[in-house]
């Protein structure tokens, strides 16, 4: 799997840390089994360049951690309430950033790589309904005629 934004070590690091938040069970696949990582570029598309740079470094480092050390590290990061000075915001940032990345991929209702698995949302029975979207032809036309971006 190739990404425009993450190197191959970072991809591995994200899979491993994703499994810490989403270990899976008899009904649901773990983060790495789900294959949702293939959508990572959609998620990182509009992130600031230096955040992506930092993410690559952190996740590449995590790719070399044995899984139990990674679990321990993320457990420490998720219990940061009483840490002193800059350690608290830094560990909170790591915890929330990695949880956000893996969980957004996993719980967004996307399709798993191996589509023989039922969808995550089906198993969670999380199925909000929507009526058909309005086809707003008038707005489509107005935008076409008035937005300079359309003629770039």
């Amino acid at each position, binding site marked *: 799997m190739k990404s425009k934004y993450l190197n191959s070590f970072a991809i591995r690091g994200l899979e491993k840390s994703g499994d810490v938040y989403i270990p899976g069970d008899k009904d649901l696949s773990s983060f790495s089994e789900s294959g949702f990582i293939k959508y990572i570029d959609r998620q990182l598309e*509009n992130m600031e360049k230096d955040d992506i740079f930092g993410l690559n470094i952190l996740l590449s480092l995590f790719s070399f951690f044995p899984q139990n050390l990674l679990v321990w590290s993320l457990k420490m990061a998720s219990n940061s309430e009483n840490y002193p000075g800059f350690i608290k915001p830094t560990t909170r940032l790591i915890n929330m950033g990695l949880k956000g990345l893996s*969980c957004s991929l996993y719980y967004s*209702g996307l399709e798993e790589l191996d589509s023989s698995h039922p969808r995550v949302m089906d198993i969670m029975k999380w199925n909000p309904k929507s*009526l058909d979207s309005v086809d707003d032809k008038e707005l489509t036309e107005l935008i076409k005629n008035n937005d300079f971006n359309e003629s770039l």
Partner: protein
Amino acid sequence: MMWSCINLNLMQDHFNFIVIGGGVSGSIIAEGLVSKGHSVLMLEAGKFFYSNNYPKFDIDSNSQMYWNGGVELTSDAEIGLVRPKMIGGGSIINGGLLDRFDDLAFEGFKDESGIGFFNNTDMLPWFDKVETNTSIVKVPEQFANKNADIFRNGFKANGFTCNPLDRGQTDCRNGEGMDCIKCLAGCPINSKQSTMITYVRSALKKGLKVFSEFEVKKVEPGKKVKIHGQDRLDKKWSFSADKLVLASGAIGNSKLLMNSNFKNPNIGKRFYTHPQYMLMAEFDYDIDAFKGPLQSYKSDDLNFRNKGFKLENVFAPPAAMSVLFKGIQQEHFYCMKNLRRFASIEVAIRDTNPGEIKVGKYNKTIVHKELDSVDQRRKNLGYDAIKNIFYSQGAKRVIEGEFGIGLHLMGGCAIGENGESSVVDPEFRIHDERNIFCADSSIFPNAPGINPSLTIMALSKMAVEKFIK
């Protein structure tokens, strides 16, 4: 940096007015100005999203409809700031709750700014004008879901007062199966009264020109104001206008003025967010908080108001809920797998301790925003009330969210009589600038403790009259 002034024959480069930011305030101001026959260009960093192209998956709405891929954390990583990025701004993805300020909120504004029109009598005509153009209804109680029932019954059991929410919507067709949690990424049936529906459409018909996916980087004051920015292909453009309206929100305006070397030391200061904290309660039956209206009730309790907090029944899609649940491994996974069994209530506090917006290396947004002891006490009082509500309704346990959320981003360019302590004057003009104006959320001098959109809209309506005087 050199900005080339490119004038393609397909577009003009000078306008009577340029509006930076196409959100709640920018839409209303642009519509007001084109209606009076002015040539207006709206420059907006985000895209045009409407019913034909709202993203279907949270991963896409997060990355495309918000700055920096979803959430920006404050410097202590305690509050996640959510900053919309699209034509229509917050009104496309917000809860749609539209409340007039009460006397307490206006008194707070008046005391802080010294401005006389901050009272319900002077503001009344402007609220009326906005409300004739926007359908505001009580969220129909017959469709309230179990999350809302728990809120209402818990209020009753504890002797608190709550009432149905006032929301900008026409008919959400919940009876036909529409679940409004979807409309956090845009309302597909055009019921929610986003400013795209209520103002932008009409402005486009009257000749508003827009440049979407265009980020303004710098403004240069002068007899004609110059605006420099960049399109989605990273190509640089310059435009000029007789008058400029800043409507890029609390963070957007503050950053823009700082990056343009405006020297007023008040820029970026007095930043408020009504920090919101969600508490989740597990029940031993399915709540299915995604059904029907997303939100139905709010606290309407004078006691809460005087103590500086309010409560609303609320929920969010799974991807957003997942970051709020604490812990790792099975502890976290269990909550997500059993999300249907959770109810949620949020406390929003009327924050008193101002934050500050700064620009860091690589143009990074840095926001310092902490709760002081007063704010912390308000939060704790809200937590106590929520826990009492949940336990009175049979909750098995209550979980506090991992971090606070900042949705109402206000201040940074506070309005005030006195140029020594504010950025914008009572005519909505940047102090000492002849032709640069602002009337959006950034001018709030403090936190009102009430949903801000309707008042932003009313102030923007009022501002248009002043701009064209």
